[in-house]
């Protein structure tokens, strides 16, 4: 099978699905042209992520990665959430196919983008948050990643 049971579980029964109207931070990454957009909403109270929701346009692994990422940061401090890596998301999902690793990268970046939005709104520094927003073009990080996918084919 293409996906692990964990991926299928999070795809078929996504955790934290939805939106938060009065979110303290919202992050959207990806690009419809590339077929993946993730949007993460955070409620933050006293530096703790008290609630998190997501919406995703994308494939099964994109939905599963967003679900897993939200589960991994819920109840954590902002700095803990910032340290979430795509590798940790992938491992928690019992792995992703090589051509789907970029979905976990998007999940990591969506969390960072939402936290950056929260900090900006509150006049807090964002210089420790990577600026890459996971778009398909105009960003060397993702660009390198795409070549990597081509090489694997």
């Amino acid at each position: 099978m293409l996906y692990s049971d964990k991926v299928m579980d999070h795809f078929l029964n996504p955790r934290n699905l939805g939106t938060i109207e009065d979110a303290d931070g919202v992050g959207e990454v990806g690009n419809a042209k590339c077929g993946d957009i993730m949007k993460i909403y955070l409620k933050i109270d006293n530096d703790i992520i008290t609630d998190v929701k997501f919406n995703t346009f994308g494939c099964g692994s994109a939905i599963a990665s967003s679900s897993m990422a939200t589960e991994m940061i819920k109840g954590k401090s902002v700095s803990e959430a910032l340290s979430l890596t795509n590798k940790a998301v992938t491992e928690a999902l019992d792995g992703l196919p090589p051509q789907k690793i970029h979905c976990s990268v998007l999940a990591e970046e969506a969390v960072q983008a939402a936290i950056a939005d929260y900090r900006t709104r509150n006049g807090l520094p964002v210089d420790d948050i990577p600026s890459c927003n996971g778009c398909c073009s105009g960003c060397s990080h993702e660009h390198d990643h795409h070549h990597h996918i081509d090489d694997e084919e």
Partner: protein
Amino acid sequence: MNRIYADNAATTKMSRHATEVMLDVMENTYANPSSLHTPGQLAAVKLAESRQKIASILNCEPREIIFTSGGSEADNQAILSAAVIGEKKKKKHIISTKFEHHAVLHTLKKLEKQGFEVTYLDVHSNGIVRVEELEAAIRPDTILVTVMYANNEIGTIQPIRAIGEVCRKHEVLFHTDAVQAAGHLPLDVQADNIDMLSLSAHKFHGPKGVGALYARKGIAISTLIEGGAQERNRRAGTENLPAIVAMAAALEDAVANMEENNKYVSSLRDKLINGLSSIPHSTLTGDRENRLPGCASFCFEGIEGEALLLLLDQKGVCGSSGSACTSGSLDPSHVLLSIGLPHEVAHGSLRLTLCPENTPEEMDVIIQAVTDVVAYLRSISPVWNDLQKGKKEYVIQ
């Protein structure tokens, strides 16, 4: 779970008749058709009979049929043979379309690296090549025109007879990849002025791993595989007799029942198209009229095709998609892009392809399943949310 198989353009289930004749040849006619002993000669007779059957369906001579491992090999051999002829005549221009199968496109890319020039004709929003544009593209150094008979993703049927006429008039070789057409549409290489034609057995309820190339006599066919003198020195290797006999049987059955099957299958297709068209912001891809009897292909705005396929699979519906995530690359299908769909819409594609074993009741189940899954995926899609809130403009009205 009751599964509904609606992916017959990918491959078909073998017919009982094809399976039976294949087993019979495996058990009873296993000798090598090249052997001199009686069992060998009986195998040679079966081979000749199969060749005769396929030739008479295509309206050509048996010697003009070369058995291959499938459609891809036939496409490769036809195009590379034309290139060798072109090289000798100093004609290194080929005309094709933007939405051919990769067996054709990748062979053409290889030839471009070897100094050939290829014109890829536009197929417009309806997915049909225009004959006047094709004729205008013909140059003194054009050696080959290769245009598929019917497209594998959107099912559009090309004006093959008119293209054949133009090619004959300008003395250009004409190859057609008829993999999706054979067994589904009436083929006549004489009436259509076709010089080379590729077909594949597993698209018409025959076995996988076998196909044929028709090549008009007089066209020098180059070998892809060197070895013995099988197939009149044009394709080495002991003939895959069980598969060849089964292919001939499957094609004969398909042609014998074509009218009846097409009437039935296109009624199922139309039911499906009508039902799915009522999903808002969806569009049928490819021409409504000139399309294969079994092909319903759609795009749904605001969702991604792989997620759609996986959720349909959970409901027992087997289809396919041209989204990037199903292709292993980041771009959606070149076919959907060739008909002018933007990337974000092409990602939300679904192809359902039917056969005579499908039923009207199954169409009802599919329509309900697709409607539900599209609605769910839209409910969790930030793209759809933006469209609904007017932050973005719908591409599909």
